[in-house]
Structures are given as C-alpha cells and as structure tokens.
C-alpha cells in the first residue's frame, strides 16, 4: 500500500515537470481535452515490474499507436486501460488512469463498468464459437446488462449498426444465424470489432488487431480504424511501424516498460527526440 502511494507521489512529480531529462520527449500536455489521462502508472507480474511510471494523455477521437519491441510493455499498458491486466494471475497495477476525469483505479469503481466504457479487440480473433454471428455481436448487450431485457428488434438494430460500422454487414447479412466460426479470419476479427462496438465504448483498445491477418484483411482493418475515429477514440498496439505511420495521429514509443517518446505521429517518425526511439524507427534494433 505504501509502495503504491509512493509511486503515485513520484509520478505526480515526473508527470508535471518538463525539466527532467526525459520529460520533453514524452510530454503529452499539448493534448488539452484528453479522453484518458494516465498518471504514473506502474504494473507488475508477480515481482517483475513491467511498466514504470507511465504518464500519457489519450487524445479524443484520435488514433494513438503504441510501438516498441516485443516485451516492452505495450500490451500490458493497454490492458491496464480497461483493467484487464489484473485478471492475469499475479498481476497488479498502481497509479491513476483517468477516464473523463474519473480514476478507473479508484476502489469505488467497478472494473466491469470500466470494461463497458473501454472496449478491447485482441490479437487473435476470438468470436464465441458456441454463438451465431448475430449472438456474437449482441453478446455485450445480452450478457452484460443483467436485469435489462432487450426486444429482438432493438437487438437487431444494434447488431446491424455495429456490423455496418465494422464494414462486415454486407458480407454476413444473409447468414446471421450461422456460427461465427464459419467466417474467415479477417471477417472474424471485424466481427470482434463489431462485438466491441455494440456496447458503444468511449475508447476502443486494439492489441495488434491485424497481426494474425493477411495484407488485404489488414488493409480493411486499417480503413475501418480510420472510419471509426470519427466517433471514437482508439488506442492501438502494433508491431508494424508502417501501420502506425498510416493510421495513427499520435505515436508512443515504449522500451522496457518505459514510455520513451510521445508525440504527433509525423514528428515521432521524422524528428524523434530520443536517440533510442530514432534507433528503433530507423531499424537499428528491434
């Protein structure tokens, strides 16, 4: 408990002081109306600390990409943004993550409610195999809102809207009753995006959503992300730097659990301020 409090105090110091050597490269205070604000976030797996004092703002209705070599903490970081990190055995997190000004790590906050507001798409498409396409998209509504009944027509409306947003409607509208596993990998991933969209999250987290897909499906997912940001905020983890350059408004570079560089994508890719970020982007390591 005291370690957590100490960490929070330390962050408030680092977050607010650009005088520190690393301060300038990770300064995100230029984002004035953030949806999320991460303050001195630390995370552990058992005794291994996988995130060190992360401070970062997430811009509203923009795409923020997290890049960095394997094991640098990108996935851990986005899993902390909807409190999924703590579901792994031995995992814990400390610090503040403000969603619209409210700390999602406040003991009063129900993690289930957090996950409804901050959706997530995973690396491997994971539709529910026992559910039809329709049931998959509706799952967030039918399973999560306990005590509230939905009329079929209401559900059908949400399902159609979500599938249209995920650019999948035309491909599946005649086979909504079929099992979700009959779809191709790329379609399954868009189905998972539709499923996440159906509960209307404020923020959508995507953990390498195209890593398991072929180039054409990847292109579709990228187009989809660009169309989604008109209404939603997206944080995406990617191994593919070209992908980050194509779709992200802001890019964050992480290394060994630390945020090394943050800024508008063009700036991070053309004039990185940190040497390690420059080395990574120019392909000298990673």
């Amino acid at each position: 408990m005291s370690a957590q409090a100490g960490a929070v105090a330390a962050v408030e110091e680092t977050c607010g002081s650009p005088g520190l050597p690393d301060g300038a490269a990770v300064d995100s205070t230029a984002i004035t109306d953030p949806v999320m604000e991460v303050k001195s976030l630390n995370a552990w797996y058992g005794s291994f600390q996988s995130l060190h004092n992360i401070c970062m703002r997430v811009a509203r209705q923009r795409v923020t990409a997290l890049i960095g070599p394997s094991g640098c903490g990108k996935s851990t970081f986005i899993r902390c943004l909807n409190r999924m990190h703590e579901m792994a055995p031995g995992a814990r997190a400390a610090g503040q993550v403000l969603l619209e000004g409210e700390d999602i790590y406040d003991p009063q906050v129900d993690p289930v409610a957090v996950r409804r507001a901050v959706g997530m798409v995973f690396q491997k498409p994971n539709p529910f195999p026992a559910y039809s396409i329709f049931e998959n998209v509706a799952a967030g509504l039918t399973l999560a809102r306990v005590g509230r009944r939905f009329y079929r027509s209401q559900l059908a409306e949400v399902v159609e809207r979500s599938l249209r947003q995920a650019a999948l409607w035309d491909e599946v509208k005649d086979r909504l009753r079929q099992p979700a596993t009959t779809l191709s990998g790329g379609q399954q991933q868009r189905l998972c995006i539709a499923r996440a969209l159906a509960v209307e999250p404020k923020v959508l987290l995507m953990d390498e959503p195209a890593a398991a897909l072929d180039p054409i499906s990847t292109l579709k997912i990228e187009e989809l992300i660009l169309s989604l940001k008109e209404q939603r905020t997206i944080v995406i983890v990617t191994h593919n730097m070209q992908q980050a350059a194509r779709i992200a408004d802001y890019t964050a570079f992480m290394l060994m659990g630390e945020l090394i560089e943050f800024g508008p994508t063009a700036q991070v890719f053309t004039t990185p301020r940190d040497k390690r970020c420059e080395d990574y982007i120019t392909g000298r390591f990673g």
Partner: protein
Amino acid sequence: MDVDRLHRRRRRWKERLMTVLIYLSVLVALLPLFSILIYVAIKGIGALNWDFFVRLPGPVGDPHAGMANAIVGTLELLLVAAAVGLPIGILAGIYLAEFGGHGLFSNSVRFLADVLSGVPSIVIGIFAYALMVLPVKHFSGWSGGVALGIMMIPVVTRTTEELIRMVPRSLREAGLALGVPRWRVTVSIVLRTAAGGLTTGAMLALARVAGETAPLLFTAFGNRYWHRSLNEPVAALTLQIYQYAISAFEDWQRQAWGAAFVLIIMVLILNILARLGTRSKFSTQQE
C-alpha cells in the same frame, strides 16, 4: 551406393513389419470386446420376447416371465444417480477449473476425487447403506440411486474440469472485455462452449454406473414385484442378472443372458447419445 540400397530395403522391411504388428495389436484388443458382444447377443436374443419387457418375473418354468420392473427400476435408479452426481460433479468441476486454481484446497479436492474414483464400488454401497438404509431400517431405491450418484461424482468432476480447461482463455478475456460479469462469463460463454463435451461426459458417466451391481446389493436390494415408490426395494437389471445367473435353473440363466443383452443395449444407446452430443451444430473447436 550398394550399402545405401541395402539400408533402404531393410528400412522398408521394418516399416512393413511394424505396420503388421500394429494391426495385429488392434485385432487382439478388439477380439475380446467383440466376442463378448456377439456371445451375449447370441445367448441373450433367444430369451427376449414381448413378455420380457412388459411382465414381472415369474416362478421357474413360467414362459411368460419378464423383467419389466427391473428395466424400469434401472432407469429410475439412473435418474436419481444423475440428479445426485451431475450437479455436484459439474459444479465441483467448474470450481476446480475456473475459481480454485492450484491451491492446497483445490489440489486436495482433486486428490480426493481421484481416490474416490478408485474406491471399490461395494464400499460405496456400504456407505450408502450406513447413510440411508440403517437409519430407516429398510432398503430403498433412493439409497441405490444415491450410491450410484456418489460413484459418478469423481468422474464427472474431473471430466468437467478438463473440458472447461479446454475452453481457450481468449474467450474468457473477450467476455470480460465486453463488460460481462465473471459469473456470467462462466455460465454463458465457458459452459456453453463446453456444453457438447459436458453432455458426452455426463452420458459416459451414466453409462459407467448403469452396469454397477455391488453398490445396489444392500441398497436398492432388488424386488420381484413392482415397487410403489423409491422408498421400497427396487429391482434393477444388474441385480436380476446376478440373482438369475447364479441360480440353478436353466430358464432363469437364459433370462439372465437376456437381461445382460438389454443392459448392453441401454449402455450402447447412452454412448451413442453421448456421441451425438459432441457433434452439435456449433462445434467447440476453434481454428
């Protein structure tokens, strides 16, 4: 060059030898199984007629004697067994797979389940006798069904745990990330994904206890007449087989074969139902 060819020939020869050996092993393994099935069928079918399924047991020499009460009794005992064994076993399996982890308590439960599945069935019969027959001072169908149900618990627990563990973690995460409460993830996503396998496991566990005699000897006890309720001694096919097979009368022995055949068919049907359970429209397999 020559050495090389020799090697290759020898290798091919070994390959053929091993293939023949493997096929022979399969035959040897299947031989007793099929001889039992065929022998029971030959001996049993002769004893079967309409009366066998609709009439009560009769005195020696009665050509119209049947085993209707034992067939119904066995089905009723299995129902009680399922009502006892399935809920306890499935809930325990869910606990072990989803919530228990590998702590001292969970590992003790696993260990005890393994021990319980190795306990001789007659000991379980004695347990049910002490628990349910002695206090009321009469045999009953209930006690027999409970004895069979207790036998099912460890099997169902461990298969449920295994099946639930096979549901990929990614599905649980997908559910949680949608804002679905944990218990709902377990019930609506994990259990539903594993439903086909669970049905199979339940059917196989039932099929296994359907053939038990020892736990019923001093619980259900057997009955030559119709039971009015499960509060009375209840006839069962296995008990009837036991009684008739060791009797001195040829037509009773013939009827025992008939009952054995009927029992095998019942178990076979349970197994086929179990197969159908796994072949549902939505398979549990993920690509």
